[in-house]
């Protein structure tokens, strides 16, 4: 059983230093060094060729779109784009890596020296980017015979090379000191910001759950004023929440070891989603002699000024800037905007407004009813089976008085159940507000007759008493009346 300190005790005694390495799979049509398709989910080993299978004699040719996407990421992260850059071979044996070396970059990455600004609890932090480089992904290994599908206990493994050679961008931060107790939140905010930046560029779908964005979290602790401690590297942390948890766990674990006078080993650790714990992997010293050397099968790259400026001109508005603009346009307070960001609803709301909804209406649906539904089903907001255009349509029906909120929620049920768009669902389920004044007037007359004392109070000027009669009418019409209209009819009749 690993000994842990409480988080509070840990951060009171030690200062954490963070570091993040993020791998992002690019959304190109073809792989990094061959023309194989990158479509997700194909039958195993159907998207491979002599190059990405590393058949004897095959040679790589670099994908221009991947190079451009990497430069765009570098520019969006405020990096300097190299004037001269090349690929290098990282040599190590592993069965999901066909060549038994990864074509990557070493001393001459495409992009260097950038930064990302993140805000946590109103405080701004600048996370410095050391490098952004381009490499290739590995294949996928299925571990068979073990109890859990994990490598330990497996009797054999099965390898599929469809993913091998998909372009991968690696983004490495410099060590981030000075975050104190907020280290986990800063790590999370950085990852979220990076994801938003890359998504805004349209070069990757950055889906953590599909593995197109993967994080390695480095962490060390030191006593105030001391040199930085030995770091651990926790691999494959694959959700924003996990990034936060992994940092928190390592702070608690390492501080307990240091308190006991033990040393931290520089090692790779694995994160376990289920428990939020990390466990040691292969230790660094025995395995990492990657024998990097310049890739002789590829030409060097010199991204000229003109090319880089052309790419810079194509960059969209940075997400942080865009958020500030939208917050002002939508008239939201800081807290409310933070909720929108946390719910990952910025783009959804923007799209809903673009489809014709008011800002308040769009925010209301996505942060309210739809967030609630997403939470209930454990899904992400964006993966709900309702489009921004449909939300705008729904809001339009409410604005027109054709739906009230209660009916609108029932319409959402229908849309999410795949019954069609809001108008179609309302029609099919008979969920229109009753606007036939004849029918409403009859219902009002009935309610007045049934509640003579209430009617008397209203005649006497107590308009607030109308609520009781409205309730009765709503009940009689099964909620399909518009409360405002009903109130008006009542007041007209009783004054």
């Amino acid at each position, binding site marked *: 059983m690993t000994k842990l300190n409480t988080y509070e005790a840990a951060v009171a005694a030690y200062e954490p230093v963070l570091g993040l390495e993020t791998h992002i799979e690019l959304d190109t049509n073809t792989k990094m060094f061959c023309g194989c398709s990158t479509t997700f989910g194909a039958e195993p080993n159907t998207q491979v060729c*002599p190059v990405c*299978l*590393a*058949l*004897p*004699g*095959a*040679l*790589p*040719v*670099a994908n221009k779109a991947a190079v451009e996407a990497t430069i765009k990421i570098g520019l969006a992260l405020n990096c300097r784009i190299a004037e001269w850059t090349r690929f290098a*071979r990282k*040599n190590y*044996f592993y*069965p999901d890596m*066909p*060549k*038994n*070396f990864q074509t990557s970059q070493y001393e001459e990455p495409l992009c260097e020296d950038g930064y990302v600004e993140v805000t946590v609890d109103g405080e701004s932090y600048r996370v410095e980017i050391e490098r952004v480089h381009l490499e290739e992904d590995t294949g996928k290994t299925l571990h068979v015979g073990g109890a859990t599908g994990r490598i330990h206990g497996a009797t054999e*493994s099965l*390898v599929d*090379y469809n993913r091998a050679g998909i372009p991968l961008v690696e983004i490495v931060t410099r060590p981030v000191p000075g975050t104190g107790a907020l280290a986990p939140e800063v790590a999370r905010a950085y990852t979220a910001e990076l994801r938003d930046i890359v998504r805004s560029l349209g070069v990757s779908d950055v889906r953590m759950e599909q593995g197109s964005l993967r994080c390695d979290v480095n962490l060390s602790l030191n006593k105030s004023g001391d040199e930085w401690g030995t770091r651990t590297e926790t691999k494959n942390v694959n959700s924003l929440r996990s990034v936060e948890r992994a940092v928190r766990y390592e702070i608690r674990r390492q501080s307990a070891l240091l308190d006991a006078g033990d040393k931290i080993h520089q090692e790779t650790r694995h994160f376990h989603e289920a428990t939020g714990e990390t466990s040691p992997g292969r230790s660094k010293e025995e395995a990492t*002699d990657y*024998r*990097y*050397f310049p890739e*002789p*099968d*590829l*030409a060097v790259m010199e991204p000229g000024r003109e090319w880089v400026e052309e790419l810079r001109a194509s960059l969209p508005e940075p997400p942080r800037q865009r958020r500030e603009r939208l917050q002002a346009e939508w008239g939201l307070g800081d807290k409310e905007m933070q909720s929108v960001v946390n719910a990952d609803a910025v783009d959804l709301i923007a799209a809903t407004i673009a489809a014709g909804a008011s800002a308040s209406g769009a925010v209301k649906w996505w942060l309210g009813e739809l967030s609630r539904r997403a939470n209930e089903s454990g899904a992400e907001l964006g993966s709900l089976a309702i489009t921004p255009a449909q939300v705008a349509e729904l809001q339009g029906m409410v604005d027109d008085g054709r739906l009230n909120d209660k009916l609108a929620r029932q319409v959402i049920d229908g849309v999410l159940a795949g019954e069609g768009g809001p108008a179609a669902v309302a029609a099919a389920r008979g969920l229109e507000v009753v606007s036939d004044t004849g029918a409403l007037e009859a219902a009002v007359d009935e309610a007045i007759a049934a509640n003579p004392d209430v009617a008397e109070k209203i005649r006497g000027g107590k308009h607030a008493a109308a609520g009781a009669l409205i309730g009765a009418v709503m009940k009689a019409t099964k909620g399909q009346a518009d409360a405002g209209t009903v109130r008006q009819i009542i007041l007209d009749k009783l004054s």
Partner: protein
Amino acid sequence: MGERTIDQTAAHIAEAIREGRTSAYSVTEAFLDRIDAVDGTVKAFLHVDREGALATAAEVDAAIAAGEELGPLAGVPIAIKDVVVTKDMPTTAASKILEGWIPPYDATITERVKAAKMPILGKTNLDEFAMGSSTEYSAYRQTANPWDTGRIPGGSGGGSAAAVAAKMAPLAIGTDTGGSIRQPGAVTGTFGAKPTYGSNSRYGLIAFSSSLDTPGPVARNALDAALLHEVISGHDPRDSTTIDAPVPPVVEAARSGASGDLSGVKLGVVKEFAEGSAAAEPGVVEAYQAGVDQLVKLGAQIVEVSCPSFTYALPTYYLIAPSEASSNLARYDGVRYGLRAGDDGKRSLEEVMSLTREAGFGPEVKRRIILGTYALSAGYVDQFYGQAQKVRTLIKRDFEAAFGECDALISPTTPFIAFKFGERTGDPYQMYLADLYTIPTNLYGGPGVSVPVGLSEGMPVGLQVMGPVMGDDITYRVAAALESTQETLLADTAPEIEGK
């Protein structure tokens, strides 16, 4: 020249087929029969594709009958070094680790040979993964030198050179990383050309040392080699290191050289090649010097040039080549293709990989993998690989300076004649010396040809002509001029081989 089909040059054969004086089928059959008759003795081939070759030949004959326009070597059979990938035909790199592997794709060179409608006779022997200078490191068989079957045919392309020397093929494909086309050419009395690096595609050439490997033609004379050179050369979008520029006019150069006029041509002799331990054995020097005298008679002017960095060529090569090889050969792990050894259901993948590579690689390959691993390992990469790449720059500068003073450089191709089997396998360094004069060209990247110049102790000697980058034409011109001084091609004076 004799009367038999197999005695004819490729140029003559091609012409005879085009003009209907013979058929591609009968030509191909003649070479296949020759293989049947003498390859039991020479052992140049690892695989012979009689059916495939005859089928291509029949297509050529049909096309000619139909009046179709065909390429300059249509119907001329060819042998391919077994380090070049051929679809649906075994390709082994003469290694046990690829025994039984049938490639699902063609090398660019193979595609070009097929597009030229040249019947592929089969695959020729080599030192495993092209690492060696004698073909003794083949995992399969020991190829004999047709001039003396007790001697090596050179290497690594001993199979291609011996096949052409023994008239089992009029043309062959070789590959040259440190001399593997030129040195076998020299010791078998055949013509071999290493083109400018990047003017020929390496796509489908099983990599030994990526920044040095160059495929090229093996032939009986300069014109035949030039014809093949133009068939296989040129930019390839699948090889990022190929040069997107016109192929130098080597056929024209070979033809103009054959007129025997070299007036105005300046040839440089590298001072450092003649000094101390770098000097060739006396018999080789004698034959080479006779060739130089002939060149002077043709009008060439000889100048001495100094290339001081050539002294470092051998150690530079033996850092770069094994470093790249150790990485290039990592893919042979028994997972996706080739041999797997030791998989008893209990051993781990790591153990099975190591046992596979132990069983699949021969001693020279292992030696170079370990040397390369060492040279690249932590703390040494700058000292070794990095330093070697810088010395390469110095060697390149020496070449460039030399070409400021002359049009081409000449030297013996190799310091010694074909040695006897086993004579140098005990000491790797002694073997490496065979490539002393050929390696600088690979490091520089320029073209080099070896042309037969005479005999020493009854064995062939080659003269090397080295040109500037993309100056392949001058090397052909000088070589063809030298050939024009010989009454018969040296290849035609070889002793008749006893069939087995």
